[in-house]
């Protein structure tokens, strides 16, 4: 009887060992996610769009055929009479209302747009994540005092979240004055509660998991539990949100610039400002608005595609 069970035991053991892979190095979840990302068409398209955009933003000023601020063809454009110059050999995208080369302005403007998007996203991400970690850590491991702190922080973010984002941005811009920095801060501040809430919620979900309980049972210190156990498992949605919010930030920055809260010097090209300027001449020269608008849309699409692909790669369970 006992020998029989022992034999059965051995067979079971063998079967169990068969299931394990041969490889000696394991694949972490991050690496698996990267592998899934590489095989995703959506991610590739998004990444290509972003890559092109970033390259243009970096080298734009050098490859631009003309100085973007020079009103070289001032004499050929009569904006008040509705006479514009469209696409032609020397000016691929035509001229704007002051006779400046639109193609050069688009190339140089990409840098400003990217800068606004990235900086404002980073403002939102860094401050939001710090608040989120504090709140999440306090809520999961802080005991009754921590829960109270978490409640206070979250009610504040709720208030921030309940304000219409554009209105909040306009108010901030109104207080700080008109500049590109203002736009970045305004757009970034709007993102703070989103990141804070997301990270805190994600940490809360992880905080109740068995492996956090196991770490506490092991006697791991609280700070270390937050850093090595809870945080790495809570980051996925935040990374996705960061990518997606780059798109929102670019659009919101453009909107603020359009409303005239951006860079006070209209000569410096920026897609949002260009869109704003094109408004007056939309009836006669719609292309002046189409170029920056399409630029913004494509860039936002690139970030959105990559973000969505990352969401799927990081959390395969979400796929239906």
């Amino acid at each position, binding site marked *: 009887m006992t020998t029989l069970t022992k034999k059965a035991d051995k067979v079971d053991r063998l079967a*169990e060992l068969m299931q394990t892979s041969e490889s*000696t*190095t394991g694949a972490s*979840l991050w690496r698996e996610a990267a592998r899934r990302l590489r095989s995703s068409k959506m991610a590739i398209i998004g990444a290509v769009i972003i890559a092109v955009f970033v390259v243009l933003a970096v080298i734009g000023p050098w490859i631009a055929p003309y100085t973007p601020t020079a009103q070289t063809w001032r004499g050929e454009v009569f904006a008040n009479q509705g006479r514009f110059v469209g696409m032609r050999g020397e000016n691929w995208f035509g001229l704007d209302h002051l006779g400046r080369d639109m193609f050069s302005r688009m190339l140089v403007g990409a840098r400003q747009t990217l800068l606004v998007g990235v900086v404002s996203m980073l403002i939102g991400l860094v401050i939001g994540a710090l608040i989120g970690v504090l709140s999440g850590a306090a809520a999961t491991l802080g005991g009754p005092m921590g829960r109270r702190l978490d409640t206070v922080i979250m009610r504040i973010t709720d208030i921030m979240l309940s304000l219409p984002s554009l209105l909040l941005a306009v108010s901030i811009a109104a207080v700080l004055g008109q500049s590109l920095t203002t736009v970045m801060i305004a757009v970034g501040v709007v993102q703070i509660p989103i990141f804070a809430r997301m990270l805190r919620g994600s940490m809360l979900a992880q905080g109740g998991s068995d492996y956090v*309980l196991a770490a506490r049972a*092991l*006697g791991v*210190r609280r700070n270390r539990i937050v850093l090595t156990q809870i945080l790495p498992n809570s980051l996925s949605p935040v990374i996705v949100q960061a990518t997606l919010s780059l798109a929102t930030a670019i659009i919101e920055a453009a909107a603020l610039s359009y409303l005239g809260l951006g860079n006070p010097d209209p000569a410096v090209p920026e897609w949002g400002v260009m869109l704003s300027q094109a408004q007056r001449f939309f009836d006669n020269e719609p292309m002046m608005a189409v170029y920056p608008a399409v630029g913004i849309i494509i860039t936002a699409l690139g970030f959105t595609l990559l973000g969505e692909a990352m969401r799927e790669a990081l959390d395969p369970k979400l796929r239906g």
Partner: protein
Amino acid sequence: MSLLELDNLKVHFPIRKGILFDRTVGHVYAVDGVSLKVEAGQTYGLVGESGCGKTTLGRAVLRLVDVTEGEVVFDGTDLAKLDEEAMRRFRRRLQMVFQDPLGSLNPRQNIESILAEGMAAHGIGADQAERREKIKAILAKVGLPANALSRYPHEFSGGQRQRIGIARALVLEPDVIICDEPVSALDVSIQAQVVNLLEELQESLGLTYLVIAHDLAVVRHISDVIGVMYLGSLVEEAPSDALYEGPRHPYTKALMSAVPVPDPDLEDRRERILLHGDLPSPANPPTGCRFHTRCPWVQETRCATDRPELTDTGDGHRVACHWTAEIEAGTLARTRATGVEAVTETAAVAEEPAVADVVREEDDKAVADAQPGLPVPGVAAGAPASDASTAVPRPAEAPADERSPSTEGGGKR
């Protein structure tokens, strides 16, 4: 002096309401006054249906949940009174194995990192190389390949993950391991392996286990002493075999009778005690005996008013019932139907009817019930209640099938 002693342990979870400030509107009495002793080198099995507080009790021992009242004395120290840092250091000696092997392993840490986490927290091993050597030795001990070190939890099978969970507890060289449903998430064939592994480790390392489970067969196999929990308190505690051969508390009797017998004839005729109603809410437990709302033997006096203490009825068999002696003697008639007709309700008694080769002892009563004209406790009256011998089946509990018609006292079938 026992290695681990719980004295009147209570864990009450506050029920909170409120938008800005929490108001406590009530309590869930998850564990409500449990006293038990776990001897060094032994295995204490804790059984009960889901929601009875057995998991909470396990966590309270490790202070993973706040202890409301009572003492958890481990090796002479009351853990419930330690401050957080002191408790953290004590956790090296008390470890836990979890129910869900995958859920209890951090998916973003590899095995080496998971196992080194506890060592780092307690300063075991001087450097990484030394820790790695130790981890390798432990992995071999629990039967995992050495190349497991750099792999991640999702790359292992269920049984292997549980081995990792056991290894994680073992690297700290604990004295006591609390196993919270260690095998219930595993396939039956793997269950046996893990149970055997736990037993081997106990023998070679002199470990003490507190095993929490609802699978009666597993608990019987692994435990020296078994405690039965119902709604936050212990209703019966006895050496393993004694409990299975002669359960004395009405709840334990019902629990045991829910285990099917792998003999169709016996299975058809044996008595099943079916409890009516649901488990009462632990937020609003019944007064007096917690079990009186469902007990087949409930009496008009005492049951609803006095809470029975766990009292020794001989041979270390402790029962929390006012009427143990009378029920054993058969002088107490049942006051509630136990519904043989409602066989389909069996599932209500236990979480998961375990496959066990436990021979039912209530078979004689089953025969009696099958013939309604006869008095129920007919033969049982002949058995003195003081007969507490556990190894020898008492006359009242002798198997009543064809093999031994003479012990029936005649005229029964």
